[in-house]
C-alpha cells in the first residue's frame, strides 16, 4: 500500500516537475515583448502625434490608457475612436473631453511658400517628418503625409503656415445612412434582440 502511494506521489511529482520545466522554458523562450494591450490601443489611435491628449504622442497616451487613464482625450479620433477603445477595453464610452479640443474635419498644414524664411523650426516640430526643406531654403508640406497635428504652427516665426480643411475627393464620397428613426410611431419593433426596453414590452 505504501508502495502504491509512493508510486502515485512519485509519478505526480515527476509529471509536475516535467511540466514545470516545459512551462518555465516556454515562458522564457516565447516571452511577449512589451504590453500587447498597449499595441492594440495604439493601433486604434489616429497617430496624429498631436499631443492634444497631454501626452507626447499616441504611444504614450496608449500606455496611459492601459494604466487606467480616460479614453476620451483624443480629439482627432473623436467619437469613433472612443467607441472602438470602449469596445476593446470593455468600458463605457464617454463623450469627448472638451478640455482637450473638439473633433474637426481633417486638415493639413500648408506653408505660404513665398513668405517662408527657411528657419527649419517647423521641420524640427513635425512629428512625422512631413515637411521638406533645408536651412535658408523654402519649406513645404507633403500633404499626403501630414496628419494635421498643428505642431508646426507655433514654432513658425513668420506665421506662414495655415491649417487648411481637406476638400472631399469625389471618389471617396458615400451616402449618409438613412435617418435612423424612420418610424412614425414609437418603436413597434418585433422579434429583435437589439432594441431598447420598449420593444421588449411590445413583444
Amino acid at each position, binding site marked *: 500500500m505504501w508502495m502504491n502511494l509512493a508510486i502515485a506521489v512519485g509519478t505526480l511529482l515527476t509529471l509536475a516537475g516535467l511540466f514545470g520545466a516545459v512551462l518555465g522554458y516556454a515562458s522564457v523562450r516565447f516571452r511577449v515583448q512589451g504590453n500587447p494591450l498597449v499595441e492594440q490601443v495604439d*493601433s486604434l489611435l489616429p*497617430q496624429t502625434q498631436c499631443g492634444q491628449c497631454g501626452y507626447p504622442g499616441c504611444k504614450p497616451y496608449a500606455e496611459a490608457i492601459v494604466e487606467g487613464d480616460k479614453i476620451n482625450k483624443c480629439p482627432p479620433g473623436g467619437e469613433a475612436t472612443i467607441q472602438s477603445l470602449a469596445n476593446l477595453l470593455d468600458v463605457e464610452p464617454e463623450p469627448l473631453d472638451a478640455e482637450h479640443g473638439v473633433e474637426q474635419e481633417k486638415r493639413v498644414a500648408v506653408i505660404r511658400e513665398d513668405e517662408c524664411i527657411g528657419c527649419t523650426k517647423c521641420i524640427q516640430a513635425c512629428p512625422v517628418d*512631413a515637411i521638406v526643406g533645408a536651412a535658408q531654403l523654402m519649406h513645404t508640406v507633403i500633404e499626403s503625409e501630414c496628419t494635421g497635428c498643428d505642431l508646426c504652427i507655433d514654432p513658425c516665426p513668420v506665421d506662414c503656415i495655415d491649417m487648411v480643411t481637406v476638400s472631399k475627393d469625389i471618389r*471617396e464620397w458615400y451616402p449618409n445612412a438613412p435617418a435612423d428613426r424612420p418610424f412614425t410611431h414609437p418603436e413597434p*419593433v418585433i422579434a*429583435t434582440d437589439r432594441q431598447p426596453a420598449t420593444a421588449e414590452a411590445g413583444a
Partner: protein
Amino acid sequence: MGRPFDFPGGIELPDNKTQSLQSPIRQPSLPDHFAVPLLQHIGEHARACVQPGDTVLKGQRLADSDRGAGVPVHAPTSGTVTAIEARQVPHPSGLEDWCVRIEPDGRDQWTELADCPDYAELPVEEQLSRIHAAGIAGLGGAGFPTDAKLVAGDGARIRTLILNGAECEPYITADQSLMRERPEAIIAGARIISSLLGAEECLIGIEDNKPEAIKALQEATNGTGIEVVVVRTRYPSGGEKQLIQLLTGQEVPHDGIPADIGVLCQNIATAESIYRALRFGEPVISRITTLTGKALERPGNVEARIGTPIIHLLNEAGLHEDNLKRLIMGGPMMGFDLPSITAPVVKGTNCLIAGTADEFPDSPIPQPCIRCGLCEQACPMELLPQQLYWFARSGEYDKAEDFNLFDCIECGACSWVCPSSIPLVQYYQHAKGAIREQRREQEEADRARLRFEQRQARLEKEKAEKEERRQARMEARKHKASGATPESAASSGPDLETLTRRRDDAREKVDEARAKLEEARETAPEAVTKLERALNKHQKRLDSAEQALANAHESSTE
C-alpha cells in the same frame, strides 16, 4: 447545352421601355457650351493637355492619362477652350469636379483621324494602346478603363467572351436601340475583343423582351460563330455576375473577377466603340443615351455628345419642367437623383429619366423590419439582406463584412420587395463607404505611426552619436590635461632660459633695426617708413618676450 442557365433570386419589373423606342436614334443639336469632366472612369483624373484660349478640333485630346491609371478625354466638337475649372458633374454627392469647358464654333470640324481598314492586322499591343487612346471606358455605366480590363484578362486564360446586351433595368433602351440600328459594328467590335483575348467562344446575352434587337443581332452574327443567347427577362440579369451565371452556369468566386473562371464580360456599346476606335480612329466623344420619363414630350434615344449639358438634351426632348419631380441618371433601380440639371453627359450616362409625381410617388415611410425574408429570396447574390441591414444600421461593420457585404451589387431587388419599404441599399452603400473610409484612415494612421517611430529612432540615434562625440572629447581633454601638467612643471626651469634667450634675441633685432633706420634716414629716405614699420614689429616682439619672461619669473617664484 443547358444554356441559358439560371441565377438565384431576381425580380420581375414593369419594363417601361416602349416609350423611348418609338423613334430611331436622334442627333441632338449643338449646345452653347460643353463641359467635359476629367474623371469619367474608375481611376485617376486625366491630366488636361489644353489651356484656356486654345482652339480645339472635334476628337482632339483634351486630357491625357497613363495606361492603367485612366483614359483620356476628347473634344466633342470644334471650338475654343474657355476654362478648366471645377463644375457640377453628374454624381449623387452634388460635389464639383474638374471639367474642360468648350464653346463650339459651329463648324464641328474633325481632327485628323487614323482611318485603318486593315485594323485586324495590327499587333495586339498597338490595338490595346489605340483602345486606350480613344478613351474607351466601360459604357455600361461603371466606367472601368477597357484596355486595363482586356489586359487583366490576359494573365488568366479567357475562354469565353460575353457581350452584355441584357439591359435589364426598366426605362433604359440605349443598348437596345444600338443593337437594332448598328448590329454590324457591335459584332465587328466583338470579333476584335475576341481575337485580342484569344477567346474560344463569344456569347451575346440578351433579354427576351427585345425581339427586334435579337433579330438584328442574329442576322449580323450569321456565320461568324458568335452565339446570341436569349435569356428570360428578369432583373438583374444584366449584372455582370448574373449574366455570366446565366450564360455559362459558373459563379464568379467571392473576392474574384470573371477572369478567374476564364470569362470576360463587355457591354455591347463598349464593343461598338472599340470597333469605331480601331476602324475609323474615332475616340469616344458621344454615346447613346435614353431620354425618357413622363415629363418629356418626345422620349427617345439620342447620340449625345459627352459634355452636353443635360438640360439641353431634355429641352430638345420637350421637357415640361413643372411636371418634373425626379431627374434620375441611370435606371430607376440603380441610378441616382441628379443634384443638378446643368451637369454634363458623361461616358456612363446611359439613361436620363425625367419622372413625374405619378411615375415616381414619394416612397412610403419605412416601417420596422418584420424579418419576412422576402429580401433574401430576391437577392441575386444569395446574401442575407436583413442581417446586413441590422449590422449596417447599428454600425457593426465587421459583422456586415462577415456576411459578405462587399459581394452586394446594390441592385436594389431587396428594397423593391421589402414590404416595410426600408431603403436597404442606402444602408449598404453607407456601410460600404464607411468601411472603406475606416480602412483608408487605418492605412494613413499606420503610415503616420511608421514615420513617427522612424523619426523617433533617428532622433535617438543622433542623440546617442552626439553623446558619444561629447564623451570622446571629454576623454581627449582629460587625457591631454593629465599628460600635459607634469611636462609643463618639468619644463618650467628650462622654459625660463629659453624665454631669456628669446628676449635677448628680440632685443638684438630691435637694436639692429634701429641702427638700420638711422642709417636709412641719411642715405635712403624712401625706405624709412618701411624700416620704421619693421622696427615697430621687432619692438612689439621684444615687449611680449619681456612680458612672458616676467610672467614666468612670477609663476616660478610662487
